[in-house]
């Protein structure tokens, strides 16, 4: 039995005993169940498995710690009202905010953070990681870490711009259609039908082939493809709200359309829209990555995560983790955004029970 195993279990047992002694229920349950799980896995998988469990638990604890400190930090620096709201945020949401914050910093200060330029060739192909290159080099000998950092700027910027435009167009049209009804509703519905009925990948393929794979074309194409989805959802949700009695009442009061949308319909349709935003954001990533799979996405040498996955995707069949790094960056952001979205959804639903 190695020192590691002895020390590991000693730490867990001591922790459980202490938390039990001081009547801390949650930490005790956590620590003790971890101890039991470690026992079982240690017997089945030996020291190596135990080490992996320890690393996993350590990472989780670290993430929790970071999220907790970050939340406290936000509460301290935020104005009083916002601070109060933040106190209700669960740790997952704090974690999401932390990740999003990190990505934003990376995106804004990319040239400062990245040690090398995104297209700068500094070593041989696939050079392993060393003190100069945190994640090693890619096939041209460019620094992987620098490209990931620049990728944050290009990928997140593009996806965000496209998603926001899609939401502005779609939600506004949807709310107007639901409120106004009549021929406007019909007309917008038909326009949305036409756009949505054209297969999105083919539509993007045609658009990009015609106008060339420029960033602005990608944003416009993606916004056009996704706005009808937002429109339909908004229309459906707002449609259910519009038939509510309080809207009838407001209409009888003689309120104007814009007031109805802003004060009555939007707040009551917000929750599904927010949930949709988080997901749409991921789908935009997917679509852009899919386009680069067909050779039409963001063009090299600009770094973006989708193309970085594609360029090295075949390596995964040999257990090489190179493509997992940008894929992981996408996954982490997606999960983080949706954690935050979940919390906002929870708040806006007006649900007080936990």
């Amino acid at each position, binding site marked *: 039995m190695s020192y590691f195993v002895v020390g590991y279990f000693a730490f867990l047992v001591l922790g459980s005993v202490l938390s039990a002694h001081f009547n801390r229920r949650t930490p005790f349950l956590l620590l003790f169940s971890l101890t039991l799980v470690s026992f079982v896995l240690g017997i089945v998988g030996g020291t190596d498995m135990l080490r992996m469990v320890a690393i996993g638990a350590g990472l989780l604890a670290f993430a929790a710690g970071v999220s907790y400190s970050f939340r406290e930090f936000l509460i301290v620096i935020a104005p009083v009202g916002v601070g109060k709201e933040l106190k209700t945020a669960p740790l997952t949401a704090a974690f999401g905010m932390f990740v999003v914050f990190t990505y934003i910093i990376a995106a804004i200060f990319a040239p400062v953070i990245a040690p090398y330029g995104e*297209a700068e*060739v500094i070593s041989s192909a696939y050079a392993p990681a060393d003190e100069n290159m945190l994640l090693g080099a890619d096939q*041209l000998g460019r620094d992987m870490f620098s490209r990931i950092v620049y990728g944050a700027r290009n990928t997140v910027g593009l996806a965000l711009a496209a998603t926001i435009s899609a939401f502005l167009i779609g939600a506004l049209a949807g709310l107007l259609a639901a409120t106004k009804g009549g021929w406007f509703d019909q007309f917008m519905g038909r326009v949305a039908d036409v756009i949505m009925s054209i297969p999105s990948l083919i539509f993007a393929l045609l658009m990009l082939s015609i106008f*060339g794979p420029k960033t602005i074309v990608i944003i416009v194409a993606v916004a056009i493809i996704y706005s009808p989805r937002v429109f339909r959802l908004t229309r459906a949700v707002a449609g259910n709200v519009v038939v509510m009695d309080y809207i009838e009442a407001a209409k009888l009061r003689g309120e104007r359309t814009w007031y109805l949308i802003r004060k009555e319909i939007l707040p009551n349709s917000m929750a599904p829209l927010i949930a949709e935003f988080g997901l749409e954001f991921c789908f935009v990533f997917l679509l852009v990555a899919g386009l680069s799979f067909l050779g039409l996405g963001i*063009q090299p040498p600009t770094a973006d995560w989708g193309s970085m996955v594609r360029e090295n995707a075949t*390596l995964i*069949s*040999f257990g090489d983790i190179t493509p997992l790094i940008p894929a992981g960056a996408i996954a982490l952001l997606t999960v983080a955004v949706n954690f935050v979205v979940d919390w906002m959804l929870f708040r806006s639903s007006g649900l007080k029970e936990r």
Partner: protein
Amino acid sequence: MKTEKQMMLDRLADAARRGSVSRRSFMACATAAGVTATAATGLWTSSARAAPARGGTFRVGIHDNNSSDTHDPGTYLSIQHIFLAHTHRSYLTLVNTDQTLGPDIAAEWTSTPDATEWTFKLRDNVTFHSGKKMTADDVIASMNHHRGEDSTSAAKPQLADVVDIVKDDDYTVTFKMAAGNADLPWTLTDYHLCICPANDDGTIDWQSGDGTGPYKIVDGEFGIGFQLARHEDWHLDGAYFDAVEMIALGDPNARQTALVTGDVDAISAIDLKTMALLSRDPNLVIYNVPSGSAITMPMHTNVAPYDNVDVRNALKLAMDRQECIEKIFFGAATVGNDFHHSPALPYWPDDIPQREYDPDQAKALLKKAGAEGLSISISSTESIFSGAVDMAVLYAEQAKAAGIDIKVVREPNDGYYSDVWLKKPYCMVRWGARPTPDVMYTLAYKADAPWNESLWQNDRFNELLLIAKSELDNGLRAEMYREMAMLARDDGGTLIPLFPNFVYASRSNVKTGDGLAASWEMDGCRAASRWWFEG
């Protein structure tokens, strides 16, 4: 007890049987072990050339497919087309596995001394899959498909010099040329020029998919795959497999996975990134064959600054070809020397010094030309070849050392060859393999050629091109091509960094002959009739 020498020879013979050692290294090892060259040759023949076994279904994954392909030879373009054509149809002549010219349907050929009339004697035992005998009429109709006003064939330029094709008797045809062309038999290996059954009105029936090749089509669809069965009356030796199954595998990962799991026996291209990793698998054999295709970077020689030969040569010196081969092609390319004549082609001059990366000399040349701190742009796009833009970026980085500022312009994929090539003064191009240097030089380097991509005008070069074309003495031709290569290298406007190799792979139970034809992937696309399964 065996001597050490005997054991070594046994191991070598074993390796030869498995096919894991090339003939050249076998000979080197065997002679090093003290065997005479003649004895080593005998040993190689007896171990490696054990009679190929017949049988089995050869399943091959093809990388370049299009669902709207057809059997019309005039529209042949994809590797799916070319592989299928060499499997179910035949040609007049073919490229042997040692890169020499060999007979296919034509048993022998002769020409007049000025090379303006070529007579081909056809085999009399060639039959179509339908059972019909092949005669001179079928050959003439098949060639005429690519000639004349109404022809829409992409191979029209190759036969532009042919004035008439005459039937001498049922098994003899004569090609009459406008000017002497010593390369006509080579030209006839072009993948478009296959033989289809003739209709009564002199057109061909390409629609039925009938042919005279080693395998006949049983079923299939372009873009998905084809099942073929052996044509028992085929006129050549080979066709060891009982059946051939072509599967369209466009995705590099799917292709490679199918090979690793044994779902196919061979694939026509591999992802170069994973070449090193794939070669570690003992069940696979990877073939890395120098080809006749080329990457060129033409500069318009009539436009400043490219009208100055020193600037052109400085730009040629500013490229580190080895780094490009290593990083963009992962070693699977042959270094270029700025003349469009690959080592895989006949008459290749092997004694011309290689141009190396030399930023200092480039700087000196620029100074001489009064063009220090040169700033230019180069056009490229991903559709030329995978990594084309990366290569331009790499070149720009390398040229910085020579004080040259190169801006990489990323052009749209679609319409690159109609809007950029021949229009922008400095761009990147990929050329497919042509059978002989004459065809290549005539297409893209002749002064008045429509595709003279560098607009290069060199009187001596053009004069030599014409003389060499009708020269039947191989030694004299080789000398002329050497002089032309030197002219193109030192005066021409085209930077030729490298010739990409064909890289394909098979399971190790698939055996090949002594060499691999370099005209196309998969042994000149004749793998189906040339390879076999280990017995």
